[in-house]
């Protein structure tokens, strides 16, 4: 079987000198038309939940409120991902253009970039870009002001409602949903919150129209996406790839020839074992099995030298520590999982205890308050079910 080179895209980082013109043209179009384009492009959020971006904008536009806000989520907390950082470094104007168009559609006057604390070094650069952006806005007659808000480190603050809590000066704990941010977001006002990459993609749609975007990818997963490739690979880095590829294609391209499993989507994603490489597509609703593509597009490649027990332990430690701690299934559930797999490994608990833990992760999935607790089951179940013997011996 010959190795197939995956199609590498260069849309996001391509430098578009015509940014002002595109912005001007887009701002001149009727709102309904832009929304229509956004929806038909098939663009879905690149920050985690994969919510259709056009619909999100539409819902917020339909809300009647005095104040509305646009937030760019640049908290990028997923370990091993730094694609949002690259976007903000290289092509932040695309992100800002997306925010501006969204502001026009929704009627928002204020926007924020919620910047991960560790990215403080980007502030001078971003401020320069913001100056240019604000002058472009006033030239184009758009009243819209964007400020930078510095995050303070917790992973959970990347979750949209926790992010808003922290912006309002409270502890970063996820809120109950509903109401969703489109109805009651920042300061209780309708808010669009989008990931950095999502916003950058909107520029592509403004520039080339929805067709070009839609032609990439498959069924429910349209367009391209940035992937942060790491682990046992000769070629780690950030790649823009078309959605819909199989894990096999991905491994053929990026693996080291001895790939045992790939964790798709970081800690909150799934582990795909070798026997499932062919049948698993990477996208929002993998055509073949049903893999989602959460968070930063992290692709962690493991070769056969890796202990899956250690891999799982790392993820669980991460969740145990990064859970905000407010809800029972996540806070206590994570501790039980960490202690439980250890007890099984040491022989303090029978191997059947793993089944109890699997059921526990189901409960976490069904009952946790936010995406963090709900997604612990993904890695736990996919690792324990596929590598049970490694958990025991």
């Amino acid at each position, binding site marked *: 079987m010959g190795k197939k080179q995956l199609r590498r895209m260069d849309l996001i980082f391509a430098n578009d000198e015509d940014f002002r013109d595109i912005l001007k043209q887009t701002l001149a179009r009727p709102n309904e038309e832009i929304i229509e384009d956004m929806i038909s492009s098939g663009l879905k959020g690149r920050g985690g939940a994969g919510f259709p971006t056009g619909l999100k904008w539409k819902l917020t536009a339909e809300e009647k409120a005095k104040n509305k806000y646009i937030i760019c989520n640049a908290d990028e907390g997923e370990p091993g991902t730094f694609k949002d950082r690259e976007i903000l470094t290289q092509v932040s104007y695309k992100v800002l253009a997306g925010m501006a168009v969204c502001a026009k559609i929704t009627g928002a006057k204020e926007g924020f970039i919620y910047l991960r604390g560790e990215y403080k070094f980007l502030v001078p650069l971003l401020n320069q870009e913001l100056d240019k952006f604000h002058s472009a806005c006033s030239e184009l007659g758009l009243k819209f002001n964007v400020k930078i808000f510095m995050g303070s480190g*917790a992973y*959970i603050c990347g979750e949209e409602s926790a992010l808003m809590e922290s912006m309002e000066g409270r*502890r970063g*704990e996820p809120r*109950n949903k*509903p109401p969703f941010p489109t109805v009651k977001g920042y300061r209780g006002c309708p808010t669009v919150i989008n990931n950095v990459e999502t916003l950058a993609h909107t520029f592509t749609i403004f520039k080339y129209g929805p067709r070009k975007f839609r032609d990439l990818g498959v069924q429910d997963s349209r367009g391209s996406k940035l992937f942060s490739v790491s682990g046992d690979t000769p070629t780690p880095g950030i790649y823009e790839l078309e959605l819909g590829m199989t894990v096999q294609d991905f491994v053929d391209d990026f693996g080291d020839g001895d790939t045992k499993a790939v964790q798709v989507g970081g800690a909150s994603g799934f582990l795909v074992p070798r026997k499932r490489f062919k049948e698993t597509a990477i996208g929002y609703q993998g055509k073949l099995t049903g893999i989602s593509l959460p968070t930063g597009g992290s692709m962690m490649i493991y070769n056969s030298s890796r202990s899956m027990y250690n891999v799982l332990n790392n993820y669980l430690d991460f*969740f*145990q*520590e*990064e*859970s*905000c*701690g*407010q*809800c*029972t*299934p996540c*806070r*206590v*559930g*994570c*501790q*039980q999982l960490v*202690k*439980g797999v250890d*007890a099984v490994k040491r022989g303090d*608990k029978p191997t059947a*205890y793993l089944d*109890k833990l699997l*059921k*526990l992760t189901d*409960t976490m*999935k*069904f*009952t*946790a*308050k936010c995406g963090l607790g*709900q997604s612990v089951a993904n890695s736990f179940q996919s690792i324990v079910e596929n590598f049970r013997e490694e958990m025991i011996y």
Partner: protein
Amino acid sequence: MAKIINLTINGIAVSIEEDKTILEAAEKLNIKIPTLCYHKDLCVAGNCRVCVVEQVGSKKLLAACANPVHEGMEIETNSLIVRNSRKHIIELLLSEHNADCTKCYKNGNCELQELSSEYKITNSDFIDLVPSKNYQIDTLSPSLVKDDSKCIRCQRCVRTCSEIQHLSALSVAHKGDHMKISSFFDKPMNEVVCSNCGQCIIHCPTGALVERNYIEEVWDALADPDLHVVVQTAPAVRVGLGEEFDSYGSRVTGKMVSALKRLGFNSVLDTDFTADLTILEEGTELLTRLKKSIVGKENGVQLPMFTSCSPGWIKFIEHSFPEYLDNLSTCKSPQQMFGALAKTYYAQSRGIESDKIVSVSIMPCTAKKYEADRPEMRDSGYKDVDYVLTTRELAIMIKQAGIEFNNLDDEKFDKLMGNSSGAAVIFGSTGGVMEAALRTAYELVTGREVPFKNLEIIPVRGMKGIKEASVLIENPVDDWKFLDGVELKCAIAHGLENAHQLLTDIKAKKAEYHFVEVMACPGGCLGGGGQPIPTSPEIRAKRMKAIYDEDKDKPIRKSHENPEVAQLYEEFLGKPLGEKSHKLLHTHYTPRDRY
């Protein structure tokens, strides 16, 4: 009118307004969905997840307390997946919880214990996480004990302290497995902005926050034949104590007196007596301040004058608004007036040496424990009040003594500091001190009764957070001519959040008053942190009704008509604000840090 939503719960149809939650809809159908972090007094947190229910067609379960109803929703509250999940969640909570129930102060009155029993969690094999935790017990506060090993992190206390009390002495610290409820920099509760009000205690579902109890100390004193143990009972206790014996909204004054006698107290007296005394002292103080400000045009006379009966409020103002300390009435609280008199006037009249007197008070309040410990409260030459017990602690003693409370005959308070007016009883409710003061002050100034039917000053009553009232003074008697035509403006706040709001308005000069009553707890003392658990708006409303009924039935309704108080002035004090009063019944407070 709100839109009506139709849904089914367990197959039963129900219609309800659109802004209601699944929990409220279920309540309407008499379907109980278990809850832990939910409390009617507080905003919805949705963090314990015990109330999850199934929405047919959706994989995720919904927190019933936090999810609004939708048209056509089909909810299952007892399906297999719901039961299994709920059981898991209870098991998880127990695994993090020091479940030594039989040795727990809250044994028998713990919501977690109740759930665990309901769901028969008998064979949970989750790993006990308690040994891996470095749980602390904070016993340094004279009012409350905080035991982190009993905490289920529902944040009811945190919400109480911030939403009801505007203090945030308790807040959430750390995250993940280290997440805990903490004070400022994890300092002990006696070193932070805690008002000692105990609202956190009555909102805590478990034994993580309980009163510091002095039951054994009081038993010891009662058992000592050399000691003369006197007890005073606060007005709100008599409308709460019955709840400990399953009777809500009842007035149990007579049974309470009878029980206290059976417990062996040498003299069973009434804080209501010193409530009447407070009115005479405080009323006179108010009129003096008004005179100085209106006639003397003196600067530096602080108006509005604030009431000073609520020790939680005192601690709050010391921390948060120290610039208003001079506005506080210099009157001690009725409890402390009583204490100071017990070891002087009472001792002398009864011919008992002061150091043989142990003075105990039964209070709806935990801040009273702190107040009794204050250095300012030793003007008798001794600790004026030795032990403060809450309504709950009294109930425990009654049960320990094997007294069948509900079958007791009514008895009367002992003489000398046992008599009181209806005006004193209503001290137990928000607005009560104001009403009592107006009944007396108005009459003093005009020679006529307050112009309200049956002396019921309706505008100062009720549960509204901040109440305002004004009384026009017309045709005063000669001594008070200067008040002719003055409109006496009053305000009342209960709950420190409302107090904060009111003071902020006063500070911003958005509102001007002559006299302001503040009680630290919602509803006033009847909703105090020492009252029976649970509490809710409905329960407090019942207690309030009982208080005003008690007032109505009293032969004397006005403080200045209390004959025992007159006797006290005649035999001992001289006159209101006299020299002896100043020494024993008045005090000053000092500013504290904001953290």
